[in-house]
């Protein structure tokens, strides 16, 4: 659970997460946008499908991995949000497609 400081003006940016539109602010990383929008869980681990969420926010832990505009396993904390960006959260182990 995070809240924005009241006196922090920034341009709104709309992205979709698993098909649902959320509002972020310019300057957010994808991981920050997810936390600000109230996503408690941002992926399931590959080994036990346990719920995970951003942990370090600085490119170290890889807990915030998401699919960004079709590219899988991107570190959400390292990708700045952009208008119209499509985010998909990861669910467990990735299947290899033919």
């Amino acid at each position, binding site marked *: 659970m*995070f809240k924005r*400081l009241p006196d922090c*003006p920034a341009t709104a940016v709309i992205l979709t997460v698993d098909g649902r539109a959320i509002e972020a602010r310019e*300057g957010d990383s994808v991981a920050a946008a997810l936390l600000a929008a109230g996503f408690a*869980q941002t992926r399931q681990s590959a080994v*036990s499908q346990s*719920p995970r969420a951003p942990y370090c926010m600085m*490119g170290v832990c890889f807990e915030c991995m998401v699919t960004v505009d079709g*590219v899988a396993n991107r570190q959400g904390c390292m990708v700045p949000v952009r208008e119209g960006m499509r985010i998909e959260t990861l669910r467990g182990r990735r299947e290899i497609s033919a």
Partner: protein
Amino acid sequence: MSGHEFKDAYDVVVVGAGAAGLAAAAEIARAGLDTLLVDENAGPGGQIYRAITTTPVRKREILGDEFWNGAALVDEVRSSGASVTQTATVWSLDADLMLGISWGGRSRNVSARRVVVATGAMERPFPIPGWILPGVMTAGAVQTLLKSSGLLPAGRTVVAGTGPLLWLLSAQILRAGGAIDAILDTTPRGSLTRALPYASGFLLSPLFAKGLALRSEVMRKVRVVRHVTELVAAGGDKLETVTFATRQGAKATLPADALLLHQGVVPNTMLAMAAGVAHRWDERQLCWSPVLDQDGRSSIEGIFVAGDGAGIAGALAAELRGRLAGLAVVRDLRPGYESSETQSIRQKLQREERARPFLDVMFQPPREMRAPADDTIVCRCEEVTAGEVRKAARLGCAGPNQLKAFLRTGMGPCQGRLCGLTLTELLAEANGVAPGEVGHLRVRPPVKPISLSELAEMPVSEAATKAVVRG
């Protein structure tokens, strides 16, 4: 500060635009050398000065003067003539000073006559039961959210661990109007006594007065529990409670939406290790540090390491180390170039570094939070517990690289960043040898994952193609 048209070669490539990288790039470019500064983040500043050019936080007192000082460094680089590229990931560096850089989904090789690695610090792993739960984060993570996005934890918030950053973050949260339910201080009893022999260097440093002021600012507003020896985060799909026990035998469970963990920072050694730079175990800081001379020259000809990546000493020392490395690079490539500043920078750096031993010993995290009980997960990616690592040691496993074959530790997406130090300490303890003898996980490029298609699409020279194509 953008641009992705990399050249094939530069005089110097500086990796990382934190305090050290900014200072190094400015010194080098000012001397007229063709300089590329690459950084993975959206803007310059590294961790300490994160989002210094874009932060939405308007009230200056929230982040404090130490933060805003970073703006001058960015201005210095901008007027130095260095090319600066943000959101560029350096995933490879080798002993021939060839770098692999990814930008915008495409990768290419860039070569340099000198490379300054200024990859900074990361949070020391803090393995406790339940640290994988959503809601448990590092203190640094919340600082990042505050600086770049103006976000504050909104629910019941518990801060736990040890070290100056714990108090700085707590003060910043409070100044911004946030609330903290409790601070669980894990600094072991007797730390002050152990650190006293090093006090003279610290008492003379401005850090002493600043540290005390921060602490009393926070303690006036937040309940602080001292000598915490056990921490357990628990919950279903996310954090619900934090249970702690103290040395004096008190035990309690607090409801919590966020648990912010911190027990110091350690050098981020990934790129330097991948290049083959020699590292040694630092007994006082309990981490790996590169072996360097006084200018940051590493064991590999042409590779320098500067900043907290060279051993933790804080933002001011990082800047000074960046300048020294930068000036040494210039002397290498422009024989006869002498800066009148070198001596005074060295003296300033010595003053900064003299304050460190006290802080290192005072805030050395307790053993039980570095080599935890058997049921605690230590490798978050592969979900391996401390008990499994100890069992592997009993079966004859001597080091972290052999441990990969036993347990896959360090083979997940984080590539051992969040378990490497723990594995070394656990194996050292189990086998009764020094951590320096146990060694570290071998780091190989790519140090950040890139897709196979990105690798396959890299531009290659005709000679490289001929080397592998028959007929």
